[in-house]
């Protein structure tokens, strides 16, 4: 059998000329891998959880209560009638000290911004440069009016959120900073500084907010935020920032202009005030998930240690080879 070269060492058949290294085959690495994962994950989870715990969040649903009681059976009529005053006053109590900046979000529920018809109905080219203002092929039915193309075109822009919030504490208005709520790249690269709204919300159907046609798109941050379509039917979008601390138990008065129609599809509207930490907003799941996975790994490590104690198998023990295990000599 010399010709079969049982003694030659290179893996000629495998063709690999490089140095080969075998994986470590031992229970110890298995146990230690699980242990290490556990040891890393659990503290990470705890840190994340505590970061999430530090976040103070106020959520206030106002769609129901901001409808006058005489319209409560026909909310649609209320919201669609432009002549009715939509003002609504809500009072929020700050549960804990909220350190600046406090982010203001509006939250919509059951709103399918991720619907394919909706997502596609926009023109990124047009938003960017004046010369492309006619490229509105994806925007139908909000592509053009008799006066020319709509800028910004499409359903996304057309349905721009138009509730407004005014905050005050003890009758003293709190300033809301609406700058820098959009991504920097949006402002600088995606929305042109020489592109101005044109023919917007001028058709028969008015969707959402109107835009000041003398302000270039690169300054319309509400639009930018809105046009970053959300991934899920429940989403929050940044409305502005309050750049002062809110003390615990402070009562905040919010005057809401309840303009946006979510009543037709029974969507909820919520106003959210939230601080952030390094993990962002309130998000306990991340920490919990880390702790669970880490715990699971430690549990597995313990299991394997126990199993090893109960039923040890020395590594490389030939008695575990198939021909030694099956009584007939060969398992077939």
């Amino acid at each position: 059998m010399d010709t079969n070269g049982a003694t030659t060492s290179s893996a000629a058949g495998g063709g690999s000329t490089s140095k080969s290294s075998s994986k470590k085959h031992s229970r110890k690495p298995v146990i230690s891998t699980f242990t290490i994962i556990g040891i890393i994950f659990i503290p990470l989870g705890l840190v994340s959880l505590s970061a999430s715990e530090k976040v103070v969040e106020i959520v206030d649903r106002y769609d129901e209560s901001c409808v006058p009681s005489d319209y409560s059976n026909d909310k649609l009529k209320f919201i669609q009638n432009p002549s009715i005053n939509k003002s609504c006053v809500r009072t929020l109590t700050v549960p804990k000290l909220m350190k600046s900046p406090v982010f203001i979000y509006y939250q919509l529920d059951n709103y399918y911004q991720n619907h394919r018809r909706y997502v596609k109905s926009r023109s990124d080219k047009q938003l960017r440069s004046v010369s492309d203002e006619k490229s509105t092929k994806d925007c139908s039915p909000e592509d053009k009016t008799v006066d020319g193309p709509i800028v910004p075109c499409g359903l996304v822009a057309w349905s721009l959120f138009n509730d407004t919030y005014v905050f005050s504490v003890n009758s003293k208005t709190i300033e809301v900073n609406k700058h820098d709520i959009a991504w920097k790249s949006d402002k600088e690269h995606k929305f042109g500084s020489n592109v101005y709204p044109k023919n917007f919300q001028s058709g028969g159907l008015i969707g959402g907010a109107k835009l000041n046609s003398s302000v270039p798109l690169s300054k319309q941050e509400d639009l930018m935020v809105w046009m970053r379509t959300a991934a899920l039917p429940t989403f929050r979008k940044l409305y502005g920032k309050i750049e002062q601390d809110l003390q615990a138990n402070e009562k905040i008065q919010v005057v809401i202009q309840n303009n946006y129609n979510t009543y037709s599809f029974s969507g909820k509207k919520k106003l959210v005030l939230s601080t952030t930490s390094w993990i962002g907003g309130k998000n306990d799941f991340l920490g919990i998930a880390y702790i669970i996975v880490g715990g699971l790994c430690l549990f597995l490590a313990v299991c394997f240690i126990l199993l090893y104690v109960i039923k040890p198998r020395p590594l490389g023990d030939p008695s575990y080879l198939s021909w030694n295990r099956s009584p007939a000599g060969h398992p077939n």
Partner: protein
Amino acid sequence: MARGRIRAKLRKSHLYSFCLFRSSGSGGQSIGGPGFSRTVYCNEPQVLNQKPYRSNSISTTKYNFFSFLPKALYEQFHRVANLYFLGCAIASLTPLSPFSPVSMIAPLVFVVGLSMAKEGLEDWRRFMQDREVNSRKVHVHNEEGGFGKKTWEDVRVGDVVKVEKDQFFPADLLQLSSNYEDGICYVETMNLDGETNLKAKKALEATLGLDEDDNFNNFKGIIKCEDPNPSLYTFVGNLEYEGKVYAIDPTQILLRDSKLRNTEFVYGVVIFTGHDSKVMQNSTRSPSKRSRVEKKMDYIIYVLFSVLLVISLISSFGFAVEIKYSMPVWWFMRPQDADEYYSPQKPVISGLSHMVTALMLYGYLIPISLYVSIEVVKVLQATFINQDIQMYDEDTGIPAQARTSNLNEELGQVDTILSDKTGTLTCNQMDFLKCSIAGIPYGVSPSEVELAAAEQMANDQEDQVCHTAIPELNEETGNYTYEAESPDEGSFLVAARELGFEFFQRTQSSVFVREKYTASGKPIEREYKILNVLEFTSKRKRMTVIVRDEEGQILLLCKGADSIIFDRLAKDGKLYLEDTTRHLNEYGEAGLRTLALAYRKLEESEYTAWNNEFQKAKTSIGADRDANLENAAEMMERDLFLVGATAVEDKLQKGVPQCIDKLAQAGLKLWVLTGDKMETAINIGFACSLLRQGMKQICITESGSEDKQEVKEDILKQITNGLEMIKQENDPHAAFALIIDGKTLAYALEDDMKLKFLGLAVECASVICCRVSPKQKALVTRLVKQGTGKTTLAIGDGANDVGMIQEADIGVGISGVEGMQAVMASDFSVSQFRFLERLLVVHGHWCYKRIAQMICYFFYKNIAFGLTLFYFEAFTGFSGQSVYDDWYMLLFNVVLTSLPVMSLGVFEQDVSSEVCLEFPAVYQQGPRNLFFDWYRILGWMGNGLLCSLIIFFINIIILYDQAFRAEGQTADLAVLGTTMFTCIVWSLNCQIALTMSHFTWIQHVTIWGSIAAWYIFLLIYGAVSPRISGNAYQILVEALAPAPIYWQTTLLATIACTLPYMAHIAYQRCFEPEDHHIIQEIKYYRKDVEDQHMWTRERSKARQKTKIGFTARVDAKIRQVRAKLNKKQ
């Protein structure tokens, strides 16, 4: 078009041999009639009424310049998966598409383009080969009267060509003359029938004068002959020359692709050109075979298609419902202005058109790159096989060759090997060893087989040594260098020379023999005039020459198979019958090939009368000529006087017994199918340890009765008895051998009996079928393949093995002495039988595991990815919006996950090649299909499902509605999609890293490179204009990289995804380790070096319990001795 028809026929027929040995037409047809219409005007190719025969240029390419695109595309879209992707690509141009057209079309173009490029390259090679052949030069007679050089492709029917020594014939020629006066020439037909010996061809007497260039200026003639056909050994036609008609027979025909040898030059007229030539008519592509793993893969694809259909239906239904009930209230979607697709009035149409969208969206469940990746991987695997130095035969310089790369993994699942004997187990190299003349045996040395047998059986035989044999054997044909018609003859000549009879000259009509040791002490030259030669055919199994010696005595000398000769003996010719028969049996048992010799003295008158008859038969024309000739020969070959018998040794090839031993230990069964006679086959069986003493031989033979029914019943009874015997056997060590001959096999293979026969055969440790025809070899192979449902491998070297090689799951050709026919038909070729061990046990095992793991992983990764799209669907009102950017999807299959799995497919080794060889039991993982059973496949699919759920829900819960970073921004579609995709890239690549057990730098580069490629892509994609990247512009730099949550999510999802698999393998390794795990551990801790005793013990235990092979024989012997000792005590 005739060629096309023949091709089609060939393709339909599963057995190559049916076509090869088909006789040309039946009787009653004559020249000029149907099938015999060809007319060739010699030396006048420009004659106007000459039919336009095909040109001599050949093309073996599958495609030409124009047909490549349509034909190759057709081939590609023959695959269901590709067709589906084509449909998707077309649909992507409509508004129904969830993706941009480029992201659907680009991967398809890439994948199909790669496969087509491979096809094109292979075809280009064929084209270059054709061009090389077509542009070979040959001397052709031209109008100026001389011979000028022309390329082969310009040779026309009717041209006179001059072919010189060692050149190939450019077309099928009628030989006119040669440099020999008698018009003889010698050709080597290796490319045609695989025989290496030379064949003598002879020109017609009438044209012998045409042996100089100048003689052809006025040469005119008309050849009328048969139409092109694939029969190599027949030719019917005549030549009209100088007002006379001469019959042409196959001896005047020089076939294309054979080579002129030992002759300075020949002149010939071109009869068949190009694709009309016999060799081209014979060419056939071997049927394409697919491995079991691949066939099973199709089922998995069907499963995935069903899953795809189901989730598309769910999705369409959901969409229709949403459109009907939700759409009208979604004012922001402007339902009143919606086209049909979104119109709430027509939810059914919406649902149906959404079906198309959904089928495209979830197309990621079907791995588009699977086929092309497997193809590439297999080609690389095949190069490893081709370049394995340990399967390189230094003597012949021929390496092993994977001729198709389709079947690499099938090599790892072989259950039964069907082997030819001659040329495969034995060398087909004959040594003249013994003879029996007039009842007295003569012999020189014990044969190798005997030596081996003697060694192994400890059962020496007496050898009689005698140097004074004076055989009267000088009938042999051949030439001075003893390149004879069969290896037997060559060895006779050598032996005869050693004994003092030197055969030194041969002309067409005479042979000259120099007798060295005469009574007078002087060498005498004797001349024997050859009057007639009655050729050897496999049907006649004999050959006869009629010679006239110097005294004028006419002698008929006949040699052939013993049974044939014995039938034709005269009453008084049986003088030595008894002794000779005994000697023949002895020789047969010693593994020698035997021939019986006989002669008869003829009276002048008797001869003349017969010769007239014979000549008439010879010149008769038409299809019944062969039969006439045979009848004439039959008349003469009777009343013979037995002289004796000769025996030549059939040498075993190097390493054969050891290889069989190893293969048996790996659990493989070996059947020997041979054309040899039973005794020889049995003896080779002993030499190869397929048989041993103490093994119970079940010989099934035919009773010889006339009644067919009776014979069948008898055979059935024998089979039943055999089964009964096996059933009643109590000794666990008892082994049975089944031996059956061709005649009996013909009955046993009939439909009503074959399963019973198979039942008996699989119970036996070894099966030897002798005297089987090529067709029967193929039938037996089919029986085993279909009857047991297990993988069969056929190995052989000659043209007679072609049928079996093509029929078996894997055909292996021995690229040795007997030419190329078997190799051309085979899937793998090795130059020696012993390389089979490495081919199967090392390469087969590896390739099987690699491909199995690769396919499993492919399905895993596509399920893990594809299902996330489906889950997200449910959150978008089933609208068909994808969570990922089109570009991510585009790269997923092609760049980000394909290279690691390919490196797995090419380089993975569970154990090293040495261990594979040392532990034959490891091979059994393949035939038992441990790595590609449904349990494992479904396990991987389940893992994919789990992985998709983990990734999706971790991501959507973490990136739900809150800010995902300290700056307060919330996650949009692009952020969620990119994060989720990052998790997928990490998880899938870490998963494959866990799957691999063999790492080189290549694996590291591909795995970690793929992950790095993703980030690099994101950077580049984020840097290009937002016109292209849209919401993904600057996404990594601006949004994700600064957000710790992004990195945390990646880590969490990756670990959570791989955790189930880690726990699984950890558990399996600890408590249910497989053999290769233990061996890996032993190797890792170097226990094999520390405890060599254990290592040796395990190695010997790793053998399958086997009843054949050398080891088994030793075991049996030991048992025997022990039993004896016990008795004594």
